[in-house]
């Protein structure tokens, strides 16, 4: 596959529940090493769009139309089998509540092993991949002996990312990955996302509502409201000089310390 061709290409995606359109994404592409953020207020259809892109809406009552192509494979209307082959190894998900998204009855090591085996990775190779991924997310390997409720939120979130990394996912979709975390930890995870994008050329699609945070990590921003995209473009352009009043309202509302401030130049 061509390095320049996007990992994710969405065109005319529209999701309806019982005839009501709750989310639409006319056009979106995420390239390797790129972080794209979707922002908007609650109910604007951010999560729905993300879920549809991962093909996780297939079994629900949602009507999905349009096209979502991940590494050249069409997701919309794809069979369970195709989707399964994409999931994990090509695209992965990181959810908001870190501990709740990990199985409570399984040690983390077992979970990651299972996932690798599921994708046909042999035992020996699995061990290598796991320690590689754990290094990448800066996690101590002894965490693998623990259950989800025995690790901190930041650790759990980093582990979820490690899962995606070790399966080799090219596209990682993250739904508000830091909003359940403490401020100090939040920054760790953001840094990790940025670093993986740069070092491993992972493509990221991140849902967020904190514009300050978005301004720090995203290359591209999509602003959504009531299921529609109101503004999209490079982060600097959209947040630096918003054209749509809704974006402006969002920006104004952010309770933020003045840029720079203590400890920053």
């Amino acid at each position, binding site marked *: 596959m061509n390095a320049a061709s996007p990992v994710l290409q969405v065109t005319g995606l529209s999701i309806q529940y019982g005839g009501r359109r709750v989310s639409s994404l006319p056009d979106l592409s995420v390239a390797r090493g790129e972080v794209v953020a979707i922002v908007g207020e609650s109910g604007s259809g951010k999560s729905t769009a993300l879920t549809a892109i991962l093909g996780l809406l297939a079994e629900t009552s949602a009507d999905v139309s349009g096209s979502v192509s991940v590494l050249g494979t069409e997701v919309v209307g794809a069979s369970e089998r195709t989707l*399964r082959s994409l*999931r994990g190894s090509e695209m992965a998900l990181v959810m908001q509540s870190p501990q709740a998204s*990990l*199985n409570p009855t399984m040690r983390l090591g077992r979970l990651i092993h299972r996932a690798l085996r599921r994708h046909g990775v042999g035992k020996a190779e699995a061990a290598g991949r796991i320690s590689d991924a754990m290094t990448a997310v800066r996690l101590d390997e002894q965490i693998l002996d*623990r259950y989800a409720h*025995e690790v901190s939120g930041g650790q759990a979130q980093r582990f979820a990312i490690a899962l995606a990394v070790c*399966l080799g996912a090219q596209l990682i979709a993250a739904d508000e990955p830091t909003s359940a975390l403490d401020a*100090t930890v939040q920054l760790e995870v953001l840094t990790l996302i940025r670093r993986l994008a740069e070092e491993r050329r992972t493509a990221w699609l991140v849902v967020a509502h904190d514009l300050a945070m978005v301004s720090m990590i995203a290359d591209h921003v999509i602003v959504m409201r009531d299921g529609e995209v109101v503004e999209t473009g490079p982060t600097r352009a959209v947040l630096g000089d918003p054209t749509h009043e809704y974006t402006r309202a969002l920006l104004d509302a952010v309770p933020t310390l003045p840029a720079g401030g203590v400890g920053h130049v």
Partner: protein
Amino acid sequence: MTTATAHPVAVRRTRRRSPGLGRVLLRRLAHAAVVVAGVVCLTFVIARQLPGDEAVTAAGARATPEQLAAARERLGLDDPLPLQLWHYVSGLARGDLGTSLHTRQPVVSDLGRALPASLELVGSAMVLAVLIGLPLGVIAARFARRRTDLAVRTGSMLLVSVPVFWLALAVQLLLSTKLGWFPVAGEYDRVLDSTSPLTVYTNITAFDALITGNWPILLSTLHHLVLPALVVAAYPTGVVAQMTRAALIEESQQDHVRMERALGFRPLEILLRFSLRPAISPVLTLLALIFAYTLVNSVLVEAIFNWPGIGTYTADAIRSVDTPAIAGVTLVIALVYVTANLAVDLTQIAIDPRTRKS
């Protein structure tokens, strides 16, 4: 314990402290003891409230006044109530539950014979219930809201709703007498007592036969066990299927299941390997409750299948207002209930690490 704290130090501490397990266990045991004590007192009070005269039962329906007086004396019925309670409780402490009025045997030895038989029956019914109900529940959850699910739901509802005594009669008539597939009643074929005598350790025939390698009796016992066990299993099977289904469906709405799907696991794999464990807790809790319930309910079934268990014993005790026996049965059932609950608590702790936090 702190789990929300975001740095590993606190986590370490969590781990070191988690052997609070012993304390959890002690607490549960204490609860159990309180419950058993409560049951003992309640039983005693109720037993003393029964009108009529224990002495009449003891001395026989046509006893003479002198015989009655002797019986009263012997049973200590003229003692003041607290003294009687004291006698009863101190007897309990010595493992003495008194003497049954209708079998004239120590209640302990009666129960020692009847309880294993019932445990054999109800135990195998429970195993059947899990073996049948659990897969049914999983299948229903896998195909939730489709036709298969509907069939399982309806079927398990029928099992829960059918009156067991009626089911027992029908099954016996159809499968034994009409079709001749199974023996009508009994524990095993008594002819085998002469050809391959059984050495008794636990009074649970199937178990004794198994550990002594007495295959003919084992086979015969299993053959005899099928029908009554199936009948007794009807209710728990239905309940297990429904509970499993509901718990799995609920679990499937948890975040971690979405995560597992996103990792590319198959739906059935997710159900069996990922959802079943966290979902099994309510099913287990229910099993413990049902176990005791079924033990009593076997009153209705055991008589029909000649099963010499606690059900038959209870029915006899009830018929003859055999106070010591009734008290003994009550106590034993309460103990079974409490033990089953404890066992479930422990299993849950083993299965679901979340419960290990106090």
